[in-house]
């Protein structure tokens, strides 16, 4: 059972993540995107971006370190082997491009108990080197209860 008292908890900002051009390309290929704006810096510049643009779900690469904070928090009681991804949402202020240096801050927006399971809503606010908002990634994690498993 997840500790309901973690609701509202805010974790320290993660170490800055530098978005690399080759990482963006690798991710774009992995999600089967063929769009030149993800792969070719010249095409990205033609479209008005400073470098290759990350696919919208690329944020998971940055968000991953915040979820690691949650899993490492013994007080939270989240057992990774029982975690199922319930839903995901990304809300952007602007696209991520190669060269961005991103920092994520995790807030536990909600913890609900439902039929033996726990539902944890984890919200990661991601800002650039200037501190301006880039994207918020919200995950609902379903932690299956012992009996219901």
């Amino acid at each position, binding site marked *: 059972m997840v500790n309901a008292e973690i609701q509202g908890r805010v974790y320290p900002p993660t170490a800055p993540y530098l978005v690399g051009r080759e990482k963006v390309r690798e991710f*774009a290929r992995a*999600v089967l995107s063929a769009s030149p704006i993800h792969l070719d810096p010249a095409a990205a510049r033609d479209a008005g971006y400073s470098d290759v643009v990350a*696919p919208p779900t690329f944020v998971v690469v940055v968000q991953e370190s915040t979820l690691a904070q949650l899993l490492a928090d013994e007080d939270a009681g989240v057992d990774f082997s029982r975690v199922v991804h319930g*839903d*995901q*949402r*990304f809300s*952007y202020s*602007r696209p991520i491009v190669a060269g961005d240096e991103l920092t994520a801050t995790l807030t536990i927006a909600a913890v609900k108990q439902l039929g033996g399971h726990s539902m944890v809503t984890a919200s990661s606010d991601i800002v650039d080197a200037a501190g301006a908002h880039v994207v918020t990634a919200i995950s609902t994690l379903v932690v299956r209860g012992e009996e219901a498993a």
Partner: protein
Amino acid sequence: MSAFESLETGAVVAERELTLTRDRLVRYAGASGDFNPIHYRDDVAADVGLPGVLAHGMLTMGVAGSVATDWLAETFGGAASVRDFQSRFTRPVPVGAEVGAVLAVTATVGAIDAEARTARIDLKVVFDGATVLGKAQLVAAFA
């Protein structure tokens, strides 16, 4: 390049059939940093009671997103950008070692907000005759 004004609610704008293979899952694990072994080890998947090695939910969401964003980039260039993208993971996608998993993705214009100059693209992903994502919606903003 087309204009925002050319969009019509209900229009199917992109369709794609694609096959996820174990090789694809391993590549996505490396690209995303999600190394949960249920996405590449049959023994671990069986131990935790799963029907087999599963595709990452975020891989399914990611490839569906690519169908929409490839269309947006090709049709509108830099004039369109993603404002919001969400999905529920409603059904697992087992990826057989030999057969993989065939997904059919359809992108439809779900709603248009002329004042805000945004369009909602609804993504339907069908595997084995059933949809696997719920409320998979991408909102694009237009210059």
